[in-house]
């Protein structure tokens, strides 16, 4: 008995010491620097280089969730037709596109209008001076918030659009030059006189890969990157847009769209069905043509069933991000250094971490490399649309993500960048950066040709 007690007491001391030692050992944090930088979308990265690079499902989706994604995929490609019809009725009467896919070709990036062609994968937001009760753009009487340039047969489109390009030359320090082009949009064939002071803002369809991951970046993570009054004096501010969300019926941080005008993918997708295709859903139950002579007065709302709508949102949420290529190539590494030296990474934030969310395990707690801070920045007068949207002023735009951008040519057959597709290659896009980014573009102009090429090579392999 005594002996047992002794053994027990020795054991107790050992256990006590062990517990003490264990409690002293500080849990090590995972060092993000050690992460594989090819994995742009964290565990939702795909190694795909081809026309389908933006169209891959999250690789860890399976079972019924993958089936739901596939259902959404099929309906993302569905073509809507005039009501009444046996399948896919509800197009228009006024619209920009008859399917999601026709603007987001291969889930990728839209391009500006070409000579003698109608608009295919871009559109124009419109509004008049002032704000609506929530602080958003004030709808233009007779036109609403978006210009629909197409209509079903027998109805009038709101207007037609054409473009003239004005070119000017910019010079690098070494004497090399580059020609930039700027659009002058012409609006004609208005179905009714546009209201005085109607403002137009051109938008190409943004690529869709990884949006579900961006939606899972916590508000506090984005807020930590803001510096509205530039307290750190680096010339870069960065502010959050705060926008109305129709489904949640509240103001929320904006993160999607060229001016971060949508807080959630539900809002973004419902808005696109409604404004771009004239298709009503449970979120937006009223036709965009309501109150206009084009309205068809057919009571078929919602035209897209809830289950189908939800599958399309899920599809968009679960599109994977293609991996970076050639990350160890010396030229790519040099380009990455220059990207940082030029200060590009101050807004095009290389790394973010998504929040922990047990209801969306695939996107939960992922280290991602989106190259965006999801914040608004002043881009100067060269890019300005002078059409405010909530907090976003006329010269401000949201930093677009750069992940996968190097695959644009393969996926979409063009290299047109920026909100209106004016840039015809990466260098033109860089040189259009003004405002807060003016120092960065000046820096790039001062680089040697070899270094400029390295920077472009880095972007091509993102």
């Amino acid at each position: 008995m005594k002996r047992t007690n002794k053994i027990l007491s020795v054991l107790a001391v050992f256990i006590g010491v062990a517990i003490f030692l264990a409690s002293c050992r500080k849990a090590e944090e995972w060092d993000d620097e050690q992460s594989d930088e090819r994995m742009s979308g964290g565990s939702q990265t795909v190694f795909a280089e081809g026309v389908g690079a933006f169209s891959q499902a999250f690789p860890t989706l399976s079972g019924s969730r993958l089936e739901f994604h596939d259902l959404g995929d099929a309906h993302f490609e569905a073509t809507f037709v005039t009501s009444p019809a046996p399948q896919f009725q509800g197009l228009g009467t006024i619209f920009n596109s008859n399917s999601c896919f026709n603007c987001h070709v291969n889930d990728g990036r839209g391009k500006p209008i070409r000579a003698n062609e109608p608009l295919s994968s871009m559109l124009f937001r419109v509004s008049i001076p002032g704000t609506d009760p929530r602080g958003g753009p004030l709808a233009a009487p007779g036109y609403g918030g978006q210009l629909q340039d197409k209509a079903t047969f027998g109805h009038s489109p709101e207007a037609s659009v054409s473009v003239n390009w004005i070119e000017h030359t910019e010079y690098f320090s070494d004497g090399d030059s580059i020609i930039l082009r700027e659009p002058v949009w012409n609006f004609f064939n208005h179905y009714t006189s546009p209201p005085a002071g109607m403002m137009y803002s051109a938008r190409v369809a943004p690529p869709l890969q990884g949006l579900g991951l961006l939606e899972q970046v916590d508000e506090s993570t984005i807020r930590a990157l803001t510096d509205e009054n530039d307290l750190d004096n680096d010339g870069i501010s960065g502010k959050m847009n705060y926008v109305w969300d129709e489904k949640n019926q509240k103001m929320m941080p904006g993160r999607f769209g060229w001016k971060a005008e949508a807080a959630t993918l539900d809002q973004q997708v419902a808005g696109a069905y409604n404004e771009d295709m004239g298709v009503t859903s449970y979120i937006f139950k009223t036709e965009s043509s309501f109150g206009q002579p084009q309205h068809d007065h057919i009571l078929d709302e919602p035209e897209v069933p809830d289950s189908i709508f939800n599958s399309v949102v899920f599809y968009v949420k679960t599109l994977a991000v293609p991996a970076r290529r050639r990350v160890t190539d010396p030229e790519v590494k040099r380009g990455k250094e220059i990207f940082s030296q030029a200060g590009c990474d101050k807004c095009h934030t290389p790394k973010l971490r998504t929040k922990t969310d047990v209801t969306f395990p695939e996107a939960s707690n992922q280290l991602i490399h989106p190259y965006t801070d999801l914040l608004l920045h002043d881009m100067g007068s060269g890019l300005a649309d002078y059409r405010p949207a909530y907090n976003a002023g006329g010269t401000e735009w949201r930093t677009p993500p750069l992940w996968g951008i190097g695959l644009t040519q393969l996926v979409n057959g063009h290299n047109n960048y920026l909100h209106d597709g004016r840039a015809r290659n990466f260098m033109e896009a860089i040189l259009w950066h003004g405002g807060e980014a003016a120092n960065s573009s000046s820096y790039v102009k001062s680089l040697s040709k070899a270094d400029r090429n390295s920077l472009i090579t880095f972007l091509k392999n993102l």
Partner: protein
Amino acid sequence: MKKLSVILPVVIILLTSISCKKDKDNDPINPGLSNQEIQNNILNDFSMHIALGTYKDMENKMNAFYTACQQFDVTQDQQKLDEARTAWKNVRGVWEQSEAFLFGPVSTENIDPSIDTWPVDFLSLDSLLHTGNSFTQSFMNSLGDELKGFHPAEYILWGEDGNKSFSDFTVREREYLIALATDLQLKATILRASWDPAVSDNYFQEVITAGQATSIYSSQRAVFEEIVNAMAGICDEVANGKIYEPFAGMDPSLEESPYSNNSLTDFRSNIQGIKNVYFGNYLVDGYGLNDFISKNNLALHSSISSQIDNALHSFDGITVPFGDAIFSQRTQIQNVINQINTLQNTLESQLLPFVQQSIME
């Protein structure tokens, strides 16, 4: 004895003729060529004989379709109508085969939706036919994809129930048919030109220079992945979309080419397109993936070639039009789906990784 003496020469002649027939696809080994040389040949022959070859054939057959529509407009009788319908089916078959390689300009330039949008917008089409608009090319350009391409032409040619008579056609319908054929011709020409090395900015060049700084493909491997993904992609589209959706929902309104009863031929042509790509054989027999795979992985080559044939032959079991078969021959349709899924699985889980591992960057 007498019988044998007759049979023997026949057998000998037969044997000789078989051994004389040089068919590269039955000769899996290319002893003289390195893997790199075979890869180069495959990319060249894919671009020349499969992509450009198919699109050239489509352009020719589209021109024939246009001519047939015009002749039907001149002479309205059953024979001219039948000829126009046959011409539609001929060019449709080529297009469906080309869907086995939906990458490059056909995809990035939105040519696919402008040729093959489904469903037909009946209501708009009927309104359109009752207006006085002249169907000029600029008027056609102003119309949406849902009013153009193969399916509106099919709808006009066969009618909603598939039994339209030559005398049922209105003047406006014949005019619109010609306008559709003109528009399709234009698209077919754009498509051919997009791969034609004789035209500037062609995709042919992108593929055969893959891996060089001027190409949009960073490596030959990337093109091989593109080709295999496209083959697997059309398997998925045909088995799990075009066939599965009307089949699972027992809903004939989801059928793609219902008026002409051509759906089964469409599906089969999609799979035939995979065979063309794999064997590098469309009108001309060139190098195909088979030459690389049979040299380096004979077992995989055998699986793929037999699974392609199984998928093609599985259609033979269906003896009624697809719109009926989704009700009356469900076992046979399920078999088609299974065979195509098997092929897709092999392409995705065996051919793709094999290509990724064995073709160097």
